[in-house]
């Protein structure tokens, strides 16, 4: 029997969040954490969480499992369970709406700030804007982000300043458009980032790199942004 401890909070009924202990019979199988949650929900339908694709593509089931952020659907028990115990909490640092569901508004507001769409003020060509394979390769490791928020909610700088520090996820996307040779707004984008908070609250702790379920490296992208700012200003 796996000992599962789940964070519960229903603001309509509970004055405070609490941890609920539940025993789950996994039948000795190495299930994914999401499977365990589904088993629990089939017993107690009030347990609430987000999920959709169940294969690490949609980014909706970012959770904190035994202290580490990740996607429940692609985290096998063998990777996270220690001493037969599994503690499941919502992503840290964001307001809890109910149980494992957090309010992502602050996360999306930061994402919105980096204008995550291609901007090009030159006349559109007849067919499409072409890119060389080398230029296209610069977007690898950036475009794959699924906005699961595992990284930003693992970042202490984002916990303390979620309104002012863009956070690893937003900055990875900022660099995705700075690195895009088809984008012509580079100067304006950089001008928006040169304050003491937006980029420079990153202290290179690398929690973001440590948790990203897609294996991306926001710290490296942040370093590239810093270098672009530096070469522009010196």
């Amino acid at each position, binding site marked *: 029997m796996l000992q599962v401890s789940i964070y519960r909070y229903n603001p309509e009924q509970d004055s405070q969040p609490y941890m609920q202990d539940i025993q789950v019979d996994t039948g000795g199988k190495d299930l994914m954490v999401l499977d365990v949650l589904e088993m629990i929900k089939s017993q107690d339908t009030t347990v609430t969480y987000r999920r959709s694709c169940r294969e690490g593509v949609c980014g909706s089931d970012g959770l904190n499992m035994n202290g580490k952020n990740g996607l429940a659907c692609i985290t096998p028990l063998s990777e996270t369970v220690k001493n037969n115990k599994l503690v499941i909490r919502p992503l840290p640092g964001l307001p809890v709406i109910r149980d494992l569901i957090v309010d992502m508004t602050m996360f999306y507001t930061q994402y919105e700030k980096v204008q995550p769409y291609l901007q090009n003020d030159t006349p559109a060509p007849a067919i499409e804007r072409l890119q060389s394979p080398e230029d296209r390769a610069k977007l690898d490791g950036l475009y794959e982000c699924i906005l699961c928020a595992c990284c930003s909610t693992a970042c202490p*700088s984002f916990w*303390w*300043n979620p309104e002012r520090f863009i956070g690893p996820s937003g900055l990875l996307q900022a660099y995705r458009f700075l690195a895009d040779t088809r984008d012509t707004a580079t100067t304006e984008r950089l*001008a928006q980032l040169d304050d003491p908070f937006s980029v*420079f609250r990153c202290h290179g702790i690398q929690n973001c790199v440590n948790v990203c379920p897609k294996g991306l490296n926001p710290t490296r992208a942040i370093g590239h942004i*810093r270098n672009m700012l*530096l070469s522009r*200003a010196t």
Partner: protein
Amino acid sequence: MVTSVTSFGRSGLSDWLLQRVSAVILLAYVVFITASVWGGVDFVTWKALFSQTWVRIFSLLAVLSLAAHAWIGMWAVLTDYLTERLMGTKGNVLRIGFQILCSLTIFVYVVWSIQILWSY
């Protein structure tokens, strides 16, 4: 763009660069002082060392680097932990109080260091 009037250089980049440059200067100064006092030092050699103008200028540079480094570092810590977000309005009062205290302390140390360096 997040505005901030209490950071050292107003721009995130200039603060970041200054933090790195001042760290290098401080490291160089620590190496220099350690090398100078290695194998013992007495009053005569210490006085001779600091009567040279370049040593005083280097020392002053180190003091100014320390001042900038300390302000940038303390400012980052204070705007992380003493905030309205974490402690309500009290955070603002505490933060501004500590910022004044820090800048005053740094100022006193800088002036005092200049006095020491040029009083030999």
